[in-house]
C-alpha cells in the first residue's frame, strides 16, 4: 500500500461515533503505509485537538481544518492543523486514490 493516498473528510462533532470511525480509518491506513490527508470541517473542527488525531499527525497524517468553520465558531487558529479553505478539499478529492467522508 506504500505510496497510495487516502483522503478523509470528517464533518461530525468529536462526540459522534463517525468522528472516531474516521480517525480509526486513518490509523489503519497509516499503519499500512498509506499517505492520509484528513480534512476536518463543520463541527469536526472541535476535534482537531483530539489526542489520537494529534498522535497520527505526529506519525505523518496530513491534517487540515476548515478556516471558515473555525471563524464561524470563533475557534482559534493554531498549529494543531493546517487551517485552509475548500480548495484543499478539491485537491484531496482530485488527487487521492480513495476518498471517504464521515458526515
Amino acid at each position, binding site marked *: 500500500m506504500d505510496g497510495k493516498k487516502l483522503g478523509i*473528510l470528517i464533518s461530525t462533532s468529536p462526540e459522534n461515533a463517525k468522528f472516531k470511525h474516521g480517525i480509526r480509518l486513518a490509523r489503519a491506513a497509516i499503519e499500512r503505509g498509506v499517505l492520509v490527508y484528513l480534512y476536518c470541517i463543520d463541527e469536526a473542527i472541535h476535534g482537531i485537538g483530539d489526542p489520537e488525531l494529534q498522535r497520527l499527525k505526529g506519525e505523518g497524517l496530513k491534517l487540515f481544518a476548515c478556516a471558515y468553520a473555525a471563524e464561524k465558531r470563533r475557534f482559534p487558529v493554531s498549529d494543531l492543523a493546517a487551517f485552509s479553505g475548500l480548495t484543499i478539499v478539491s485537491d484531496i*478529492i482530485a488527487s487521492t486514490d480513495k476518498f471517504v467522508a464521515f458526515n
Partner: protein
Amino acid sequence: MKRQVLLIISSDPRTSARPAEAVRIAAGVVPWLEVRMQICFCNEAVLALDELSADFPDGDVFEQHLPRLVEHELAPWVERTSASLKHIKNPLVSFKEVSTDQLAQFAAGCDYVLNF
C-alpha cells in the same frame, strides 16, 4: 479524468445546518474545476430550494451559493418522490427533477457519493 462526486442532501434544513454546509462545500469545490460535482436534494432537504430557506439555520448560504453553482452549470437535482417538493413555491434557482432510478444509476457511475 476528473472525479465525479454526487452529494445527496437529505437532512431537514429547517432543523439542521448540514444542508447549508453541503451546499457551501459544493460551492467551494466546483469553481476549482478539479472535480465534477452533482447535488441532489431529497426528502425535506428540498425545502432548501425555496426562498423561505433564508430563515433556516445558515439559510443565507442557499441564497448566496445556489445561484453560483448554477452559473457553473450545476443545476441542483431534486428526487421526484420527495414529499416536500410540493412546498416549493418560489424556488431560488431552477432545478431538475430526477427519478429514484435515475439517481441510482447516476450514483452507480460516480467515484464518490457523499450524504449530508
